[in-house]
Every structure is written in C-alpha cells, then in structure tokens.
C-alpha cells in the first residue's frame, strides 16, 4: 500500500503576463509526492522550478489545474487561507536563511507559532522552539542572534523554525546555495536525519551532488517535468563527511 499523497498536482499550469508577452512558467505538470519522500527538483534557471516551489509553498496559486496539499485543494484558496496553510502545513527553508536580525535563535524559531490559531501559550512556544532547536543540534545556541552564528548554524535555525509547528511538508529553496561544501553536506545530513524520522522534504537545487542525497530527482525544463527518477547511488551525509575528513588527513600527512 502506498502512503497517502502529500502533494498531488493535476495538470497544473502557471502563466505570467509581462507586458505583451505571456510567460508560461509551469506547463501542465502532473505529479504526486507521498508522505516520507525526499525529493529534489532540479533545473536550470528559467526552468520553472522556482514558480513550482512558490506554488507548492502556497505562496502562489496556479493559473489552471488542481493542487491538493495533504488532501486540501489549495488552488482556489484566498490569501488568508493560504497563510493558514503555510502556517501549519508547510515549513520553509530559504537560500538566504531569512532569519530576523537582532532576534535570538529561539525567538526566530517561535515566529510561526506567533501566527498560529488557536493561539499557543508562550510557555509552550518556548518548549516547542527548544525542542526544534535540539533536533537540529543547536539547543545550546538558543540565545544567540543570527549575526553570532555561522552560515550552517543559521540554516539549521531556519530548519528548526520550519519544523516548529510539525508541518506535513518541509520545502527548501536552494538550502545549500550560500554554504561551503562541507557545511552543505552537514545541512543535507540534518535533512536526511529528519527524513528518516518520517518528514516529507521537497528541495529545489541546481547542484547534482546535493540532489544525490535525496531519494528522488525531478528535472524540469521550460516549465515541464522531463525526468522523474529515483536516486540510484544515494549518498549518506555522515559517510561523506567521514571521507572528507580522511582526505584532509591524507593531505596533512603527505605535506
């Protein structure tokens, strides 16, 4: 028996009107992503992957077609309803981290809970935020401000924020785009660990080696899905880090 669909796209299209031209950003895409999957959406710039991401993240509505998120038809909802869905169904991780400056890591993680209805008492907010920080291994940095954290740590705070309200779907938009290769692998390690715990993750990236940490790769071009394949030689983040460290040791020994 297949697990339930978290994302169900039925011939979804998105068209923008720029001046006299119509831009077909996404054309007639049909797709299913099930609970527990770890999917990478790849493509060159202009392939429609960002538009796809915005639609999956309920930041944007498709021009035509049907989009079911965790069983809810999100293609015709109002702005306010979309905000509610973003709040408790989706966790976002961005390329630029998008943390609030001059606000502690803990408070950044609490941010989505400020907007949840029914309201969550502040003691519970603290508790849940601490738990989420613990999951990404940053419990002891809760009082640090973003400018006191490294890029990888900031991204992990952002992941904790995305997890705070236990969403059905974790959406990551180029999560390793601003990070060096070792930190990128660390962040992918966090994602793999979360995925092992049953969290569904969809990630947009243009780096093939990063996509190889996922379980399924969807490649887009000109607004269409051109390939949709499972990852054959899946990389494991802890192993890769191990390899990196050994290589470094070897360099130190030879020099």
């Amino acid at each position: 028996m297949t697990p339930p669909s978290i994302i169900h796209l039925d011939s979804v299209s998105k068209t923008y009107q720029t001046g006299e031209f119509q831009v077909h950003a996404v054309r007639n895409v049909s797709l299913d992503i099930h609970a527990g999957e770890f999917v990478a959406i790849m493509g060159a710039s202009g392939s429609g992957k960002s538009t796809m991401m915005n639609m999956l993240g309920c930041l944007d509505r498709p021009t035509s077609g049907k989009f079911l998120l965790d069983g809810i038809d999100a293609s015709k909802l109002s702005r306010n309803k979309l905000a509610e869905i973003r709040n408790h169904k989706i966790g976002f991780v961005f390329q630029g981290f998008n943390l609030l400056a001059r606000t502690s890591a803990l408070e950044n993680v609490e941010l989505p809970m400020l907007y949840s209805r029914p309201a969550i008492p502040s003691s519970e907010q603290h508790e849940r935020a601490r738990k989420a920080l613990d999951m990404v291994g940053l419990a002891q940095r809760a009082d640090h401000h973003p400018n006191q954290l490294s890029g990888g740590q900031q991204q992990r705070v952002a992941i904790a924020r995305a997890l705070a309200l236990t969403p059905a779907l974790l959406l990551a938009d180029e999560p390793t785009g601003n990070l060096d290769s070792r930190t990128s692998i660390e962040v992918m390690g966090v994602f793999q660990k979360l995925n092992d715990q049953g969290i569904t993750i969809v990630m947009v990236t243009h780096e093939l080696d990063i996509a190889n940490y996922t379980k399924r790769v969807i490649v887009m071009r000109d607004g269409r899905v051109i390939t949709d394949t499972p990852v054959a030689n899946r990389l494991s983040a802890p192993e890769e880090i191990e390899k990196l460290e050994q290589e470094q040791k070897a360099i130190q020994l030879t020099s």
Partner: protein
Amino acid sequence: MRIFAIGKVAVRALQKNLLRTSLTMLGIIIGVGAVIAMVSIGNGAKSQIEAQIANLGQNNIMVMSGNVRRGGVGMGFGSSGTLTKEDLTSIEKEVIGLVAISPEVRSGAQVAAGNQNLQTSILGVSAEYTEIRSWPIEIGSSFSPQDVKAGNKVAIIGKTTAKQLFGEEDPVGQIIRIKNAPFVVVGQLGGKGMSMMGSDQDDVVMVPWTSAMTRLTGATTFRSLTVQATSGDALTDVQNQISELLRQRHKLQPGQDDDFMVRTQTEISDAATSTSKTMTLLLGAIASVSLLVGGIGIMNIMLVSVTERTREIGIRMAVGAKGSDIMWQFLVEAVFLSVTGGIIGIALGVGISMLLSSKMNWPTLTSSTSIGVAFAFSAAVGIFFGFYPARKAAQLDPIDALRYE
C-alpha cells in the same frame, strides 16, 4: 496573534531605532503639549472673566441711557442721559421682583485728606449699592438712605484710596475733601481687585448720588442704573418690566427705537465669555496644526519602516502571518508612537501651563476634558496616519517581499 505578542513585537521594532522613534514621537509631544497649554491658557482667561463678572454682583441688571443720534451718527449707549430721577423712583415703586436699585453717577476728581491727595473716581450711588454689587464693607458701614435723601456729605472709600490717603490709619470718621467739599468717611470697602479692563476697582470713593449730582457733576440725568432682581429666574421678567415702563415714561411710539438699553448680567457675561471662547478655539486650532504635522511625521516614518522591513514582512508572511497580522503589527507601532507621544505631550502641556501660571501669573485652567480629548486625538492621529502604511504592508505580495533586497 494575541495583542500582547503584537505589542511586544511593536515595542521591539521601535527600540531598534531609538533615535528615530523619539524624533517621531517629538512631533506628537509638541503637538499635544501645545494643544494642552494653549487650551488651558484660553480656559484660564475665560474662567477669570467669568469670575470677574460674578464679582459684579448677583442677579444684576444694567440699565443704560440712550443711544442718541446726532446728525445721523450714533453716539453709543450712555452717551447722553435719558434716565431721570423720576425714572428711578418709578422703577423702584412699580417693578415687581426687584430687590434694590442704584444709579451710578461717575466722575473723576481730586481727593485730598490732610497733606495727601490723589486723582480718583467718584461714584454716586444709593445706600444699597454695596449690597447689589456684593461688595462687603470692611470697616464702618455704608451711608444710610437718609443720607441719600438729604444729600449728605458722607463717603465710603475703596481699599486703595484708603491706603493712599491714610496709610494704615483707620479712615472712618476722617474728613476727605472732594473738589474742596468736605466729606466724612463712614466706611471702607473690602478689596475687589482688578476689573475686566485692568483698572483697580478699589481706587474709588462712593458718595450718595444726590450729593454727587449736586456738588460734583452738576448733571441732572443718569447714565446708568444697576438693579438687583430677587432671583436668577426673575431676571428676564424684571428686564421686560423695566423696558416696558421706560418706553411708557419716555413716550416712545411702537416701532420707535429704545433710547435706553437694559442688559442682564448673563447677557453681559455671555458676550464676554464668547470672546474668550473664540480665543480658546483659535489657540487650539493653531496648536492642532502642529499635532497634524506630528501625525504626518508618523506616517512618513511608518512608510519608510515598511519599505525597510519588506523582507521581514515577507518572512513573516511565509511562515503564516496573514495580511491582518501584518497590518496590526504596523498599526500598533504607529498608535504606540502617537499614544506614548500623547502622554508625554500631556505632561509637557500641563507642565507648561503650571509654569506660566506660577512664573508669569497667567491664569491657566487645565481641564480633564482637554486632557482626555488630547489623548483620544493623539490615538486617533496614530490610527489615521498609521493606517495607510500598515495597509500597504499588509497588501505586499509574499513572493515579492521575500525577494526584496
């Protein structure tokens, strides 16, 4: 989002830019402070005028003699004496609801006592005049109705006059010379202070009107009479009776203008306070302009703040903030600015008016109404000028806001 959480976020955001926050607030502080100070100056003036009018006596009616036209030019009321002694006695006898009546024969004269002398105003009145004006006699007593009938040379003197002529000495029983006629001082009046026009009311000598007319002015008619009615309710009735009676006595045809004027104290006080009301309004209006400018300052800063924090708005929206959440956040910030500014402004305004009254002796009156209105107005300014920027923030598209650099 709960109101407490919104408030916390708003205060945080304002704290981050303390200098900007305080400068923006300063606009409202000055505006509210100016309104409070100006209105209390205006109200102070008004209440002073009211007190002075109450000082004139209670339930009084003024009868002034005619508006005489000379060659088509109105000479104004009191320019000519159309009120006769017979008018006086017939009003006294025939008008119902009247307690006392007194003419006012005014004249300026040199008064001397011993080796002191001064120029003062002489007031020829009846024996009841001090009662009509609720003007207490401090030492001695008023002259009697017999003194008035006989035209005796007796006088009551004002406090200032007494001090100038006799120093600390008891003036009762002393002789003063008015235009060289010797008058016996029978009483000294209590202090009444400045009049509305700023002259010293205590610089006065009161003598029986009969004596004043025969010995001092030589006039045969009165320029004005002061009447006291039994109660405030009787004022209009007494006023009408006097008008009727005088028209009859002066043989005026229907349609012909009065050659006298009858005014109740309420009418006089209304006229005087309406002037000060206009002044209060004008001062308040001018001060409100600065409050308006302060409000525009808030709007300006909020617009800048929305633009600066576009990315923050995008993040908040991405994690589930609705348009209304964002709108509340910015609206609360604007209202917090204006209300805090308003409270400080009220303190400033009250402080200024207290300073003015203590250091410069200006009468000021800060009413709780004006404080309440200023507070409500500052909150309204925050809502009004905060609404547009807040709505602008709420209507941002989350995708664009997230991409904003």
